[in-house]
């Protein structure tokens, strides 16, 4: 187990390295510079500023210096937000994104798995059709439709919940964003669970368990569910990526101070170091989630050997 984790982490390093390299050179290939402001800087000042951030040196040298910094855990200063390092920006803003992301993925898993199991057990009955209709709607109604519609109806017309803002993470402010992020995930998770469950319930070992006279409840919980949620575990990585794009929209609509904002604005402003910091943060997140998914896979399915 430990050896497996160690090996996977070792493989993750070159992947992360490649991601950094691609992002670095793509970013630098973009025309414009972080110092193109509304006022044109005089050439001398611009040269001074460039020199201050080491941007007067050859690109490869800058790349080497950046990598050296990253290895030591230094992501450099922001080029746009004065007096702030990239690490500070990440630290100050990750909490909002993480709160939203984690709560909605947990909520979506609980609701999605329950609905999926229910649908599979009542296959081709009304419950099944209702759940699958919800699932299709959840996939087809994008977050940028649900978010404004919910704000319009629940916040503006009915006035039940605040329409925007973070308010220190107060629960009423969190409900709408989390619901919006959760719905599409519930849809996908319940579909995956139902498909897995339907297949597993037909398999021989479930028939054996039934023949032994085990109660239905126990068969579902102990035997079937374990195998049925395997496809779900592999979905963990892509789900995280989906939450990232989802939270870009949700943070914008609900005006939340999360990381998403920096992603778009910094790329547009050519704030190289901040963009790189975001890329490293999200890439590492996805790599870690994929690792967790693989581990869970091995725990749930004894046929998988970690090697």
């Amino acid at each position: 187990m430990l050896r497996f984790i160690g090996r996977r982490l070792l493989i993750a390093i070159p992947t992360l390295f490649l991601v950094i390299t691609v992002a670095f050179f793509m970013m630098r290939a973009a025309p414009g510079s972080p110092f193109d402001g509304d006022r044109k800087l005089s050439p001398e000042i611009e040269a001074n500023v460039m020199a201050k951030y080491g941007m007067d040196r050859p690109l490869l040298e800058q790349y080497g210096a950046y990598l050296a910094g990253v290895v030591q855990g230094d992501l450099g200063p922001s080029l746009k937000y004065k007096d702030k390092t990239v690490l500070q920006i990440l630290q100050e803003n990750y909490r909002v994104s993480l709160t939203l992301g984690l709560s909605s993925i947990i909520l979506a898993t609980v609701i999605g798995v329950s609905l999926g199991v229910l649908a599979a057990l009542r296959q081709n009955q009304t419950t099944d059709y209702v759940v699958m209709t919800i699932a299709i709607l959840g996939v087809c109604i994008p977050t940028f439709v649900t978010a404004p519609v919910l704000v319009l109806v629940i916040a503006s017309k009915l006035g039940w919940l605040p329409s925007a803002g973070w308010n220190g993470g107060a629960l009423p402010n969190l409900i709408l964003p989390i619901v919006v992020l959760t719905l599409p995930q519930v849809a996908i998770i319940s579909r995956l669970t139902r498909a897995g469950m339907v297949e597993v319930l037909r398999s021989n070992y479930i028939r054996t368990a039934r023949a032994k006279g085990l109660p239905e409840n126990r068969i579902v919980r102990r035997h079937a569910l374990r195998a049925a949620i395997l496809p779900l575990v592999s979905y963990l990585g892509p789900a995280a990526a989906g939450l990232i794009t989802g939270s870009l929209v949700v943070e914008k609509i609900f005006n939340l101070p999360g990381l998403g904002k920096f992603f778009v604005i910094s790329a547009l402003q050519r704030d190289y170091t901040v963009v790189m910091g975001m890329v490293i943060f999200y890439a590492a997140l996805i790599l870690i989630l994929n690792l967790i998914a693989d581990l869970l896979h091995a725990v749930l399915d004894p046929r998988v050997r970690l090697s």
Partner: protein
Amino acid sequence: MTGTILTPGSRVGAETMEKAARGRSLWDDARRRLLRNRAAVGGMIVLGLLVLAAIIGPYFTPYAYDQINKDHVWAPPLTQGHLLGADSLGRDLLARLLTGLRVSLAIGLVATTVSLIIGVAWGAIAGYLGGRIDEIMMRVVDVLYSLPFIFFVILLMVTFGSNIILIFVAIGAVEWLTMSRIVRGQTLSLKHKEFVEAARAAGLGDGGIIAKHIIPNLLGPVVVYVTLTIPAVILAESFLSFLGLGVQPPMASLGTLIANGAQDMELAWWLLVFPSLTMVVTLMSFNFIGDGLRDAIDPKDR
């Protein structure tokens, strides 16, 4: 069965035998199953109507999609000749909606074609050659997977400026990853399948094997994935437009219309509701068709 007795040398029943031996092709079977699926057929009809509306609709609206009319600002639906109302510049929503639908569908189609070409070529080469090359090529896919998609596209947009052709290419270039994985996996397993060996033993050449056995089996999952990629691409473009990086005004796509509608929703609900409905109906019909195709083509899920 007609109960024909087969005696040696007799031609009686030979016709039936030949018919049975020819059997029904994979595609005949698939088509039959697809046409029995009500949701899929409904999806195809709705999608056909939407495509027709997107192609010829803009020629029949009383106003052009970019025609500004300051007397018609925020005209509600069914007033002043605006069937679906008008926006903050007095532009006809119906005309903008049809144009936006056209743009979104076109992006879906073109970007999916781009992803199809890259993905099939990449996956087939990796799967067919195998070994070291396969490993390296799939490693590249893994790396690209761990780049957050949106970041990739944003970078492309800021690098080359946002124009509509670039949106096609950028989204297509990102969406090919899953396609290449599917194609590679299929090619790998098909190469060693018994029926391929059987065909070879029966004397069929490489070309015949590829044409009759590999491609049809490869095509199934690919077609299914294509119908599911188109809505994903339409969604992706809308995300970009929503963040202000997609189609630029006065051009419209479903995404920009929804984004604008969301801004003005307190004043003019129709600007949010009609584009959103169109979007949802479009995505749904694609998904129904995709699901129907998967059930029809993929023998594993039957």
